[in-house]
């Protein structure tokens, strides 16, 4: 006797995927065909465990190489700006190219394509963000902050701060202080 079957590949794949994700105790939400939103952060181990379980069905986790590299660029920049121990004596373009093993031109084009901003602007934004933190939390003088962030002068830092945020460092300090005062009044 011969039986004939009719398949719906989409439902089969979806069911298999659901089963494996559940077996691996992963919280998830099916977003669409071939796209699953994972509702928790997966460790590298758990991710490779998941890939192994998927291997027998020849299902592969597709990683977007571009977004991964962009994230690496951002991480490197943040580290460069925020981490005191990372002393950067070379130009940031040289530093990024060496740290990530790609030409700066390639990195720069990719970055602009994915993030809508340029590497230069992102570095400035991060530096100013760090300056803001220092102004608020540590009450450092602008001279000290300029030195910490490798600016050639206080004037250069102030100008860049004003150009990036539209307000001066001292106005920023004043506004945040007043805002905190107000918040405290409201909670009391």
């Amino acid at each position, binding site marked *: 006797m011969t039986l004939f079957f009719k398949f719906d590949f989409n439902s089969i794949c979806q069911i298999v995927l659901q089963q494996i994700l559940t077996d691996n105790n992963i919280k998830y939400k099916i977003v669409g065909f071939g796209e699953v939103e994972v509702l928790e952060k997966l460790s590298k181990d758990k991710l490779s465990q998941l890939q192994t379980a998927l291997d027998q069905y020849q299902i592969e986790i597709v990683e977007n190489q571009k977004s991964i590299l962009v994230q690496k660029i951002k991480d490197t920049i943040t580290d460069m700006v925020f981490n005191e121990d990372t002393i950067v004596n070379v130009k940031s373009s040289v530093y990024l190219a060496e740290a990530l093993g790609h030409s700066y031109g390639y990195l720069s084009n990719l970055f602009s394509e994915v993030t*809508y901003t340029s590497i230069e602007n992102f570095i400035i934004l991060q530096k100013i963000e760090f300056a803001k*933190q220092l102004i608020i939390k540590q009450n450092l003088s602008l001279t000290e902050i300029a030195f910490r962030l490798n600016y050639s002068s206080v004037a250069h830092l102030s100008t860049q701060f004003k150009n990036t*945020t539209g307000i001066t460092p001292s106005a920023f300090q*004043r*506004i945040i202080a*007043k*805002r905190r005062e107000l918040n405290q009044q409201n909670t009391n």
Partner: protein
Amino acid sequence: MQEDYINITLADDDEDDRLFFTDAFDEIKITTRVSTFNDGVYLMDYLNSEDALLPNVLFLDLNMPRKSGLECLKEIKQNPKFKDIAITIYSTSASEEDIENTFVQGANIYIKKPSDFKTLKKVLSEVVTINWQYHTNSMNKENFLLRF
């Protein structure tokens, strides 16, 4: 997964300003969805409704009938439900007092309405781009102040 568009909402009682605003967003590079309200009451009714789609960036005109932008700002800041919304004051006023006061009340961005369309496009595009950086890099919104 990241949403690939940014949700923008504007409350402004001036019809021309609303039109320029939506036109400007049609022409900039980042994909946005723009909705507009005619005054503060309509806006707050919508935001407080259960199925409201909360904007990523909210633009408030200061002078509106029934409920002003400043009143909206205060209400929004008191409700934790709205804590992820970046608030932009979008006003004809350039008085230092207004600017500083709205920042202190919790606004993130202050834009003096530009008089020409080209500048408007440039400013709005910058606002959305910088907000996008804060959004995608989980940067501290409390320190997010920007003035045009």
